[in-house]
């Protein structure tokens, strides 16, 4: 930062005043040799080192207060992160369902055996049909018996009440609620009920959209909370150091110099809070890993869960640091006016 030349420009040397002063003021002369570029960048670096280390020292001087603030921030930031992870996995898992495009055709009870196979053959001839699977009532009953656990109850039935079912897989995912293929099967006299889950898929999509928005809102609220927590912490820190700030301003510290250690403090709070949030999230992932693994094993590992990747982790740390800096900036802005006249 080149505050020096800025400041020097602001100190206008005694300009020719309208009312001439009794003693002629000396012409403007450089009071101090201008610093070289290198010296200035070295000074800039030294001043930042000063802010950097003095802010760390201040945090370390009050380990309990610092730890409490960081803990609070860590949990505040971990919440939206966990929501986001849960949501991401829900979206991934539902991905398979969203892609579901099978059309299930329940045939009328009188369409049996050969007639059902003929209908299947008719459908197979269509260009937009990839595959047709026929499920006979016997297969259906066996499947139902296995999945529902009503085996004994089903034995009571004299006749098999289930119809023949055709599972039609279109060549491409059809558009809209009622694509031509579905409409034509519906129109066919042999079909009793045609199930095509467009509505359900749209509902799932809406649920995911809602989840996404909810996570965003919670994240925004907790980010605001982080900003305020850090802002308030820094504000209290500033109040505790009013005397120090006054002394620094009296011996020529610019606003930037006075403010810098506080901005660094905010940055540290954000950084440590973000790091803690990551640790919490990773800990939570480990805690649920065991039971979740068993659950997924029961699905033959057809589902895979994703944890926090390195890019998200870096983004979280960067964002929380930035929030900390911004909070400190807001808190310090109005305190800098103290110690100046007017």
């Amino acid at each position, binding site marked *: 930062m080149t505050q020096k030349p800025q400041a020097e420009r602001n*100190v206008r*040397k005694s300009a020719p005043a309208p009312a001439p002063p009794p003693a002629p003021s000396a012409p*403007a002369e450089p009071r101090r040799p201008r610093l070289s570029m290198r010296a200035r960048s070295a000074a800039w670096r030294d001043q930042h080192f000063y802010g950097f280390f003095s802010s760390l020292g201040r945090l370390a001087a009050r380990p309990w207060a610092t730890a409490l603030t960081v803990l609070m921030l860590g949990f505040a930031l971990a919440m939206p992160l966990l929501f986001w992870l849960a949501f991401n996995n829900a979206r991934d898992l539902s991905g398979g369902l969203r892609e579901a495009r099978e059309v299930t055709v329940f045939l009328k009870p009188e369409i049996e055996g050969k007639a059902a196979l003929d209908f299947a053959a008719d459908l197979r001839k269509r260009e937009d049909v990839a595959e047709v699977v026929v499920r006979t009532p016997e297969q259906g009953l066996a499947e139902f018996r296995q999945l529902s656990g009503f085996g004994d109850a089903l034995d009571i039935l004299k006749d098999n009440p289930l119809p023949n079912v055709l599972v039609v897989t279109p060549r491409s995912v059809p558009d809209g609620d009622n694509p031509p293929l579905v409409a034509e099967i519906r129109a066919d006299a042999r079909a009793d009920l045609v199930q095509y889950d467009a509505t359900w898929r749209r509902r799932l999509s809406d649920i995911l959209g809602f989840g996404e928005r909810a996570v965003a809102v919670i994240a925004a609220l907790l980010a605001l909370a982080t900003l305020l927590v850090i802002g308030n912490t820094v504000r209290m820190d500033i109040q505790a150091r009013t005397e*120090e700030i*006054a002394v*620094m301003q009296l011996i*020529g510290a610019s606003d930037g110099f006075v403010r810098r250690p506080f901005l660094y403090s905010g940055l540290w709070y954000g950084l440590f809070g973000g790091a803690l949030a990551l640790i919490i999230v990773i800990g939570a992932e480990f805690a649920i890993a065991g039971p979740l693994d068993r659950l997924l094993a029961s699905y033959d590992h057809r589902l895979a869960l994703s944890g926090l990747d390195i890019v998200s982790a870096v983004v979280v740390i960067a964002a929380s640091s930035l929030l900390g800096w911004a909070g400190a900036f807001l808190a310090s802005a109005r305190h800098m006016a103290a*110690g100046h*006249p007017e």
Partner: protein
Amino acid sequence: MIHFDKVSKRYGAGQDALSEVSFEIDAGEVVFVTGHSGAGKSTLLKLIGLVERPTRGQITVNHAQLSNVRRRGIPQLRRDIGMVFQDHRLLTDRTVFDNVALPMIIAGTSREEIGKRVRAALDKVGLLSKEKSSPTELSAGEQQRVGIARAIVAKPPVIIADEPTGNLDPQLSAEIMNLFAEFGAVGTTVLIASHDLHLIKRIGKRVLILDHGKLIDDYRPAAP
């Protein structure tokens, strides 16, 4: 070096703390400001360091006309003024060395230079051996000398001191005042507010006497 031209200062709607004060101090002069409590000594010093702005009149310090110094320019102006306070105002959470180094860190001086200058300043006030101590471990006189070292470390052309010996016993006060008198000899302009007339007389320097905000006397001792 310091020039006041019909300067008045009024706080709020009350009486003038200073009224129509004019004087001129040359470079290298050591000048005392005295007067009863509330005569305007502190106000006068505050105007020089731009802690306060005058209500009327013009002040020039070190060739800078203060009415032209805007808010952002104030820090730069203050770096050319070493300030010494009655209660020394040292920062107790850091060492003597760091306290004295602060003005130079603020000014952006290189680290090697800071080390040299801080030790030179501490040597001048006779506290070189205490550089690693905390200000709280020092006696009142030593603390004030650290405050003076902080004021002179950046070699400002102007030093102002507000009751620098207010809390010290007579012997320590005399030591401190003699220290200030020495700075004048090396070309620094020194302005000291004090009500210790006895001590001021002994130093034998120019004295500005304020009474209810008015400059009633500008006493210059005969050249030795």
